[in-house]
Each structure stands twice: as structure tokens, then as C-alpha cells.
């Protein structure tokens, strides 16, 4: 019962109002990145942000609903990938709870852990639904690894380990930059604000 109570505490009104904005941030920044033709996705900044200041459960919900919205509005191919987004929010929430969102190097570690999780979770989806080859350019690496004799799961997993860290570390750093730009008074209204305030300002 303690767990359920602590989850409920994370979902205060501020959290519920922040989540739609965070999802919109995911979608719109994702589109700006496409417009600028950058070699990353950066489509989960809002998810990491919610995970950090509202806790892992709110982050997981943000990620899941983010993919549902992406599927509703832009491309139904996004639906089956929702577990990846769920774990991105969940892991970044736990990293923040262990204090990794107080320093910039902690944030890089967070990005790396999120990337590892995303790589592991997306591998079975890519393998079972798409046979390992998706529409993204990184599938060339997968094909190359297949040619050198790796089996499908190893090839997809290694590809993900290669491409995820850059994207997720950049995502985490941008979310951190946003948090640093918000006032302390504003942050304190969110349930897990103590996760992100610098160590010296803690009581």
C-alpha cells in the first residue's frame, strides 16, 4: 500500500497538467529536429523531464501516451514501440531519484543508462515485428552485421547499442538544461523537485 500511496503522490494536478505539455514538447521538438535534418531523434526530452521532476511512474505514463499520440497524429507505426518510451521515462525517473540529475556528469550517466535500456527493450520489437529491419538509416549497420555472420538478435542489439547513446545523452542533457532554466519556486510545485535541486541547496 505504501507503493501505491507514493505513486498517487507523484500524480498531483501539476503533474497531470505538465504531462500534456511534455508530450507536445516531444512531438514538436521531434519535428524541429527533422526540419533541421539532425542525425538524432530527440523525441523524448519531455518524457525525461517528467521522469526527473515528477518521478518514474509519471515518466513512464508520459512515454507511453507520447507514443499513442504520435500514432494518433502522425504515424501508426509508433504504437508498437510504446514500451521503449515507457522505459525511457521510468529509468530516467529512477536515475533522478538516485540523485543523478543534480550534476551534468550525472545526467550523462542517466542518458547512457536510458540508452542501454532503450536498446534492450526495442530489440525484441524490431526483431519480432519488423524482422530486424526498420525504416531508419541505422538498419544498414544491422544488415552489415548480418552479413558478417551475426545472428539477427545480436545484430539488432549491437546496432542499437551503437546508435542509442548519442541520442539519449543529448536528450538527457537538453532536459537538464530546461530544468536549470526553471525557477526554484516553479520546480518546487512538482512532486519530485528535490530530485533535481543541486546538492548544496538541500536542507
Amino acid at each position, binding site marked *: 500500500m505504501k507503493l501505491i500511496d507514493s505513486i498517487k503522490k507523484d500524480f498531483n494536478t501539476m503533474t497531470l497538467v505538465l504531462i500534456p505539455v511534455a508530450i507536445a514538447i516531444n512531438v514538436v521538438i521531434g519535428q524541429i529536429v527533422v526540419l533541421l535534418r539532425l542525425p538524432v531523434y530527440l523525441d523524448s526530452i519531455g518524457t525525461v523531464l517528467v521522469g526527473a521532476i515528477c518521478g518514474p511512474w509519471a515518466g513512464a505514463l508520459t512515454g507511453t501516451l507520447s507514443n499513442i499520440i504520435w500514432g*494518433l497524429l502522425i504515424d501508426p507505426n509508433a504504437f508498437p514501440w510504446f514500451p521503449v518510451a515507457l522505459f525511457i521515462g521510468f529509468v530516467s525517473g529512477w536515475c533522478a531519484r538516485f540523485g543523478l540529475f543534480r550534476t551534468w556528469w550525472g545526467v550523462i550517466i542517466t542518458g547512457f543508462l536510458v540508452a542501454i535500456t532503450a536498446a534492450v527493450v526495442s530489440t525484441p520489437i524490431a526483431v519480432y515485428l519488423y524482422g530486424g529491419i526498420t525504416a531508419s538509416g541505422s538498419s544498414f549497420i544491422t544488415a552489415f552485421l548480418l552479413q558478417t555472420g551475426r545472428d539477427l538478435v545480436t545484430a539488432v542489439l549491437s546496432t542499437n547499442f551503437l546508435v542509442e547513446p548519442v541520442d539519449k545523452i543529448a536528450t538527457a542533457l537538453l532536459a537538464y538544461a530546461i530544468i536549470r532554466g526553471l525557477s526554484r519556486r516553479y520546480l518546487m510545485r512538482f512532486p519530485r523537485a528535490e530530485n533535481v535541486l543541486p546538492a548544496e541547496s538541500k536542507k
Partner: protein
Amino acid sequence: MVERLSFYLERSSPLHRLNPTTKLVVAFTLILVAFLGPGLLLPSLIFLLILTPLSFVGQVGREFLRTTVRLLLPLFAFLFVMQSLFYPGGKTVLFGFWIFSVKLEGVRFAFLTATRVLVMVSSFLLLLFTTHPGVLLLDLTQRGLPASVAYILASTLQIIPQMQAKAATILDAQRSRGLDTSGSLGRRIRALLPLVGPLVFGSLVDVEERAIAIEARGFRSSRPKTSLVEIEDRPLERALRWLCLLAIILALGSRLWP
């Protein structure tokens, strides 16, 4: 940037009048049967004999086919080239050129994967073309989806177009001040912050005000809420949904005991 709010097209067809949950259940059933069911041709038959005729019943046939092709053609082209050349364990060589050889097993695998993805994407598309997202959310809320989840989804659908408009304004403003959005990679990376910063902080400022506003309107009240709109649900549709469950069980059975 996307201007429309969703894929929904307003028509008066029998498909539009169906209960949203029925359509959702049918979509999930077709996808599960396509992925679990036996045979190489099953997914393509589902698309040709069920989804395409249904889209014409729903009077969205042309848009349905056009959007399906637009969303899936690049993936399919890629899939066929990569799988027919690089599918591991392919033995039967169909034809070869230079250092490449096209293998039958790869082509078969690409066909099966492509048609399964086709069923997955197109059944969701058909649902979205014929169902207003608000009505679907309302129906799911009346069937027990938590009101907070419905609020988040409905509110996001409203915020995204506003934010896209804001992003377009910021983009124009920064470009007119000389921001380079099409130069080298380094310049494009540097263009990201001046675009993202104003957008994000501007949107986050509204959060606090909106939280106070909805709290003042009884958002956190736990009493049952009444609704202005009634959504029809006929006994025939209930029967159809049970039939869907049966189809899923059959498909699962065919996978577990071949």
C-alpha cells in the same frame, strides 16, 4: 509541420456510426490474427478482403489507400531490398548480380513481414479515419479508462497544434534575425537551442495557471461524472466483440498447436 488535428474525416457512413470501442477491438483482433495466424497469405488477405472493402464502406477508401502507401512505401522498399539480400539462412538463390544474390527465403520473409506491418498500420488508420479521437476517449472513459488519462490525451491533442503554430512563429522570427537553419551540420546543431528554448519555456509557464484553473473546476473530485453526450452501443456490436475474442483465441491456438 502538420496542420490537421488527426486523421479523422467527417462522413456519414455505417462505419462512422459504429461504437468506437467496437472498432478498436476489431482493429486489435485483425492485427493479432495477422501476426499469430498461419499461412503466408493470411495478412495480405486480411488487407485485401476485409480492410480495403471496409474503408470504402466508411467512404474513406481513397484517403485510406493513399495514406497507407505514403506511410509504408519507403519502409517496404527498404525491407524488400535488405531482406532479400541479407536474410540469414537463405539458400535458394533466385538470381544474382555482382557480389549480391537475391534469395527466395528472404523474399518470402520480407513479404510476410511487410504484409503484417501493413495490417497493423492500416487497421489503425481505418479506425482513426472513421473515429473522432474525442468520441473514442469519451467512450473509453465511460468504460473505465481513468479520467486523468483521458484528460492528458485530450489536452495533448489541443496543445500540439498550438505549439506547432508557436514553433513556426519562433522559426520565422529567428530566421529573420539571421539564424541559419540549412547550413552545415555544426550550424544546424547550433540552431537547435534558439528554437527549442523559447518554445519550451513559453509552454511551461502556462502549466501552473492551468493547474489552478482545473482544480478550481473540481478536477480532483472523485464523484462519478455525468456526460452530455451519449454513445450508442447495440447488442449486435457486443456480440461482434465476443466473436473477435474467439478469433484471437483461434489464431493463438493455431500458433500453439500447429
